[in-house]
């Protein structure tokens, strides 16, 4: 006989006619889903006069008729229209595809009859701290969570389940808090610990482990659509793994979550922001980025901002703001204008809609690894020590320098040129340094000694090495120029010497200077002009270009006679290197040429110097003066400026001091140079950066980039609290607002997501949507209690998780009964413990851990473990191959797997990982044959099966039963039952016979993966056990948190 149970009404919790109606719980969901699409916040744009989302309008007199007449359903328009038999009048209209069910009609009718009481949407009301409810079985409750859960169970006449046994509990909590299974030793220790605090000790140990940080980060990567590639068409590699390191570390150190949010949203704007805090803003840069050649950059710049808004609003606020991009939100009170006000916060960043094809796109900052930070500190120490050694000799130096100064010949052309990173100095004294082309050039007296005279199309070819730089190199190029007329024509270049050529160049245009870095003239270039004519006729002037390798116009500086010059950017869209990877640029560094024969320079040039670093402005200022050392030396001490002193000291130490001092100085220069080179190897992270102007945006009509409407200032939706007092109206203020006590959403949304992580489903099931279309919380008071507790604790994530896993609710056994299956199939009321399939990365990490293959290293660049051959080749372009790693990198935790957005790791996708194309908040679990094939036949799980077999044989004892038991301990963290052992024995015996009959099978079967086969193992026996090891990994229980 089957007993029938009444299923629970979880969503529409109201059973018509039974209990009092609550608007938010019972009525709003119906109105929202069935009516707001037309009669909601966006009604006006559609010229629909009636709004049902606003109480006043819904009850207003519409010329004798009213949609809602409180207390009188029969007179209420909405009741009439949803019940009429007239097809023409019936609401909702057929074309909407919606229908109001009879029980919904009854709910609405009862609500109107009872007075049509209205409520503000629940999630926009402040978080209050509810009192703990009274319960009958008070002694069951271990903490506050249980009181709320039990109160509801008692109301539904359900009993909580018994506590899960220790083995189950240990595996459950270890998986939940670290993403890994418990080891046999941990199991043993826990079983042996009979103290009352045994479980709590485990919880504390797990929360303190680095694996906890990785486990939490894995979820955060999905929320924040982290990937190692740009997505869209070409999908080239990017480098955000240092941001991932930062996330792991933040969770591991239990950074207060409000601080974490502030860093994610606006770390760059925090007062005295540290590098780590700036790195946090990488959250906003994890979106896809388009590098396709033919795109219109403005279009994608808009998409990136929208993506940032959608992600931040879903993750932190549980809002589907993206719905208001093209029109007012259909369900929530968010206008299109408010969307663009919110958008403005994320729009104030200097970025290009077309991203870099390879590598990170600006803005970005270097973020050295801890090891690199150490090495850098070592460099700094060496540099400091050398500077100290020089300083220690300052008296001696001063004395010797005086002698040298006296001896300087008054007519000497010697002048100061910084030596560090100086690549070449073309003084024009030695014509051999350059090769003159097309015409003979003269070397005539110039600014210092000789200069070159360029006439009639002549130019100098300074060779291939001299100025060979690409778009990520840092360099400075300075020279002296003079012309009888207003200077005109190419000054210097590394280009193919054509009008719209490739490469970089500086060209004089009637006294103005034009700078370009060009990969493709049309739209892959930086073009900059000086605002005014800066060169004049008839005198020597010093020109200095510096470039910081950022591929951005703002990384280019130009100085005239040592002073920075105002620049105007015409195009700022450089993204491809001048040359294809590895190839040398096929044109030399030229002086007086670069834009073709028509644009040759006429005049004189002198003292062309190239450095492989960005010279600081103060050094350029000195160079721009072009003072001879003899002139400086001739000044009496009191008349000398600091700059004069510096030039003399530095020139003396670099060129004229006794050998010992010169060595000391050149060692210092070497260290500085090497430090600079070392710095250039630091990984970078794409981050946020704020333009100096206030955050603004255009309202985009229909959401389209090329239909800009009114300009709006950054601002918050009017139905939510305003900025906290004193907060600036920028991203920082936004972050402060999100994390303020008054914000009704952030804490609720956060605790709900953590609840979802532990219990499988959020208290609000729609964890990404707390709006009108979101689901009513199963335990609204509990949600509020947790949110206020979380905020009161200083947004202490570990404390909150601890409360959850310490609860009696969490510790229940997860068996179902026919009653529970019928009444609460989704386990929303938690009359039993959670039983859910593991996430993709846990499925793999668990197998590696059980096999003792897992490498515990935390952080670092992404790795490429096993993947079926050919997947990238058959879908990608320009020969992108998946080059699998070897050794340790095959066995890192799955959150380190290289994530290519357009071709994601197949095992991860099979097990429902999000594809990282967009933010995903809710967890998704399916059960498919592809998962079965994956676990049975993927080398990852076969190799793990073999290593588990080796462990069973080596560590498990001396007989089959003990070894099989040990296999259970390794994979499932529990002792098997007799029947289970019986099945495994039978399987083992079958496989022994199977492999005995054919030695060839043994070798083939064992040859899975790159991990060595244990030398001691007898192959046939190992193969039989390997089948068992893999079988264990395929059990339902194994891929389930139970």
């Amino acid at each position: 006989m089957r007993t029938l149970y009444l299923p629970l009404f979880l969503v529409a919790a109201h059973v018509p006619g039974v209990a009092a109606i609550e608007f938010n719980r019972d009525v709003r969901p119906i109105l929202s889903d069935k009516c707001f699409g037309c009669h909601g916040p966006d009604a006006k744009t559609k010229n629909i006069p009636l709004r049902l989302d606003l109480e006043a309008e819904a009850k207003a007199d519409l010329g004798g008729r009213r949609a809602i007449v409180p207390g009188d359903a029969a007179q209420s328009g909405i009741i009439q229209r949803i019940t009429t038999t007239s097809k023409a009048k019936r609401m909702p209209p057929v074309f909407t595809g919606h229908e109001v069910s009879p029980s919904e009609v009854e709910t609405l009718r009862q609500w109107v009859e009872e007075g049509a009481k209205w409520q503000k949407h629940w999630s926009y009301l402040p978080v209050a701290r509810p009192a703990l409810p009274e319960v009958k079985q008070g002694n069951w409750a271990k903490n506050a969570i249980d009181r709320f859960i039990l109160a509801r169970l008692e109301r539904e006449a359900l009993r909580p389940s018994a506590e899960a046994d220790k083995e189950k509990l240990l595996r459950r909590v270890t998986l939940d808090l670290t993403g890994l299974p418990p080891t046999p030793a941990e199991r043993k220790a826990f079983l042996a610990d009979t103290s009352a605090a045994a479980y709590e000790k485990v919880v504390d140990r797990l929360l303190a482990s680095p694996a906890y940080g990785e486990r939490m980060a894995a979820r955060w990567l999905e929320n924040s659509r982290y990937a190692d590639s740009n997505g869209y068409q070409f999908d080239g590699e990017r480098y955000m793994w240092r941001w991932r390191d930062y996330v792991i570390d933040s969770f591991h150190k239990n950074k207060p979550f409000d601080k974490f949010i502030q860093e994610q949203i606006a770390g760059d704007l925090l007062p005295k922001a540290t590098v780590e805090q700036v790195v946090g803003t990488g959250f906003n840069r994890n979106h896809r980025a388009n590098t396709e050649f033919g795109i219109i950059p403005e279009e994608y710049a808009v998409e990136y901002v929208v993506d940032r808004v959608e992600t931040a609003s879903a993750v932190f606020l549980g809002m589907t703001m993206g719905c208001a991009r093209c029109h007012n939100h259909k369900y929530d009170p968010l206008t299109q204008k408010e969307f663009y006000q919110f958008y403005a916060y994320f729009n104030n960043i200097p970025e290009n809609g077309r991203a870099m094809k390879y590598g990170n796109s600006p803005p970005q900052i270097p973020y050295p690894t801890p090891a690199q930070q150490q090495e850098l500190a070592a460099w700094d120490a060496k540099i400091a020590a050398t500077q100290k050694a020089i300083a220690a000799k300052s008296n001696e130096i001063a004395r010797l320098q005086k002698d040298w100064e006296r001896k300087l010949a008054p007519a000497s052309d010697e002048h100061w040129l910084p030596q560090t990173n100086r690549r070449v100095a073309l003084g024009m004294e030695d014509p051999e340094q350059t090769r003159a082309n097309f015409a003979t050039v003269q070397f005539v007296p110039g600014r210092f000694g000789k200069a070159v005279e360029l006439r009639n199309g002549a130019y100098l070819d300074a060779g291939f090495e001299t100025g060979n730089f690409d778009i990520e190199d840092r360099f400075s190029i300075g020279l002296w120029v003079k012309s009888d007329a207003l200077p005109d024509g190419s000054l210097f270049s590394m280009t193919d010497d054509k009008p719209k050529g490739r490469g970089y160049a500086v060209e004089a245009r009637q006294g103005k200077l034009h700078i370009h870095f060009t990969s493709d003239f049309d739209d892959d270039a930086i073009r900059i002009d000086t605002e005014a004519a800066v060169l004049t006729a008839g005198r020597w002037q010093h020109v200095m270009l510096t470039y910081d390798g950022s591929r951005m116009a703002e990384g280019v500086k130009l100085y005239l006679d040592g002073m920075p010059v105002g620049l105007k950017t015409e195009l700022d869209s450089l993204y491809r290197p001048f040359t294809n990877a590895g190839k040398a640029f096929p044109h030399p560094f030229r002086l007086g040429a670069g834009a073709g024969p028509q644009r040759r320079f006429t005049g004189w040039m002198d003292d062309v110097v190239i450095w492989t670093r960005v010279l600081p402005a103060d050094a350029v200022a000195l160079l721009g003066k072009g003072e001879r050392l003899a002139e400086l030396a001739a000044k009496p001490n009191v008349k000398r400026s600091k700059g004069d002193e510096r030039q003399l000291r530095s020139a003396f130490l670099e060129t004229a001091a006794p050998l010992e001092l010169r060595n000391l100085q050149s060692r210092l220069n070497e260290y500085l140079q090497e430090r600079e080179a070392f710095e250039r190897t630091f990984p970078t992270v794409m981050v946020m950066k704020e333009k100096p102007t206030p955050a603004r945006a255009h309202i985009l009509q229909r959401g389209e980039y090329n239909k800009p409407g009114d300009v709006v200032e950054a601002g918050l939706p009017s139905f939510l609290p305003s900025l906290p007092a004193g907060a600036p109206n920028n991203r920082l203020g936004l972050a402060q607002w999100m994390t303020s006590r008054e914000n009704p959403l952030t804490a609720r949304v956060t605790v709900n997501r953590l609840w979802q992580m532990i219990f499988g489903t959020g208290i609000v099931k729609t964890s990404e949507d707390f709006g009108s279309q979101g689901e009513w919380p199963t335990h609204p008071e509990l949600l509020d209690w947790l949110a206020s507790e979380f905020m009161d604790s200083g947004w202490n994530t570990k404390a909150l998780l601890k409360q959850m896993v310490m609860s009696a609710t969490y510790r229940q056994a997860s068996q179902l009964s026919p009653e529970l299956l019928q009444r609460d199939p989704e386990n929303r009321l938690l009359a039993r413990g959670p039983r859910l399939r593991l996430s993709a990365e846990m499925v793999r990490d668990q197998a590696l851990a059980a096999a003792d293959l897992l490498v515990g290293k935390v952080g670092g660049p992404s790795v490429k473990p096993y993947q079926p051959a050919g997947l990238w080749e058959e879908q990608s372009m320009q020969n992108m191959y998946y080059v699998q790693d070897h050794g340790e990198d095959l066995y890192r935790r799955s959150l380190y797997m290289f994530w290519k957005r357009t071709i994601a790791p197949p095992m991860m996708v099979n097990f429902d990982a999000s594809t990282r194309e967009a933010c995903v908040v809710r967890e998704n679990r399916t059960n498919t044959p592809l998962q079965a094939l994956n676990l049975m036949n993927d080398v990852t799980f076969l190799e793990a099966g073999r290593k588990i077999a080796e462990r069973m044989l080596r560590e498990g004892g001396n007989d089959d039963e003990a070894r099989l038991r040990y296999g259970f301990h390794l994979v499932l963290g529990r002792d098997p039952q007799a029947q289970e052992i019986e099945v495994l024995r039978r399987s083992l015996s079958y496989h022994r016979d199977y492999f005995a009959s054919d030695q060839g099978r043994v070798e083939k079967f064992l040859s899975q993966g790159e991990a060595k086969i244990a030398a001691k193992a007898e192959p046939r026996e190992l193969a039989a056990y390997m089948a068992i090891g893999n079988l264990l990994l395929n059990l339902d229980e194994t891929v389930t948190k139970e």
Partner: protein
Amino acid sequence: MSIEQTRRSFFRKGATGAGMMALADLLAADERGAGDVHPKLPGLPHFPAKAKSVIVLFQHGAPSQLDLFDYKPGLAKRRGEDLPDSVRQGQRLTGMSAYQEKFPTAPSIFQFAQHGQSGAWVSELMPYTAKQADDLCFVRSLHTEAINHDPAVTFIQTGFQLAGRPSMGSWVAYGLGSENQNLPAYVVMVSQGTGNTQALADRSFGAGFLPSKYSGVKFRSGADPVLYLSDPAGYSREARRRYLDDLAALNTLKHQEYQDPEIATRISQYEMAFRMQASVPELSDLSSEPESTFALYGPDAKKPGSYAANCILARRLVERGVRFVQLFHRGWDQHGNLPKEIRGQCLQTDQPSAALVADLKQRGLLDSTLVVWMGEFGRTVYSQGTLTETNYGRDHHPRCFTAWLAGGGFKAGLTYGETDDFSYNIVQDPVDLHDLHATMLRTMGVDHTRLTFKFQGRHYRLTDVKGRVVRALLI
């Protein structure tokens, strides 16, 4: 081994008595529908379906309508003339030709002729398709919003330019399920062309916000037609059967203790996996096909992974009740060297595409199978790069392009829609991609406004908020 045999052997060798009885109950319940591998949604189809299956022959990279189907005889005398502004109308161009100083009109160098009773215009590049013209419904007035490959493919495949939404195959699998319990509902095959190639993202056949089980399953040539399908070396089919019996025995014990229906589902998914291990190789093994098949599909037909071989597989999938099959053939992005490259692409695809239509027809399957040939947009009438007597290139052109559809309730021998003299703008009967989707769904018995999925508070559909059924295209 047939399914019945596997099931019997399963019961014979399986777990202990009581447990097996429970499992037998479980699996029986499964067959009544609870565990139907590919169930359809309640209430679907909305209308009697004409097309039971769909095969999309996606020509990835965007083939030139001007050189294949959209005949413009008037262009010959305008060769090299700048495209009149009155035609271009300030149209948005890709970043690739936006800076071009001239837009020289480039007439196709290929000969066109009318074919069949319907008199459809087809160029000499497609002789086999031309012969099949009376079975095809040409739509020359398709247009799209996107101008670059990635958003355009995403748009035509999912109804939206940005990532995140389900592909049409996923929608159909979600709505209508599938009739074969041993094969996936939505199968995808990729072949490589000889022309300029674009990247193909997983999302083009992904499930978007639908559960991932509705994603297209990629069939590949080689040892593992489906990822992880083959048992490891040294492991036999019999051993796998035993392994699964033991696995099921253990899972059944678990089910007895926990009564979680997910466990029962897992057991049946492993059984489905086992069946797929037989059904997929059987499907991919073309050795049982007569020589006449290979003759029909052309010289590549015996080459695994070729477009021709994939066309044969598409027919075999549809014969077995698979709901949605999509081929992607890459290499249609002819920015330069169009004449040479398009010839190569057509050599690979023309005969097999036509053969598929003919083959389905001769087997009586064309009426119940919709075949769609299309790319993601069209190409420009003006030459990208230098125009010479024998060479030109064409840039992306979203404002008009041609697709053909066959079978599945579409009108045979119809040419629909018209473009201007430059194949630049549509002058009659425009069909946007939402309309195309709506019409395709309609022949499958689905009202496109009523196949929805609630995500982030909104009821999404393939046709977004647009789409109208183009009745003129349907029988």
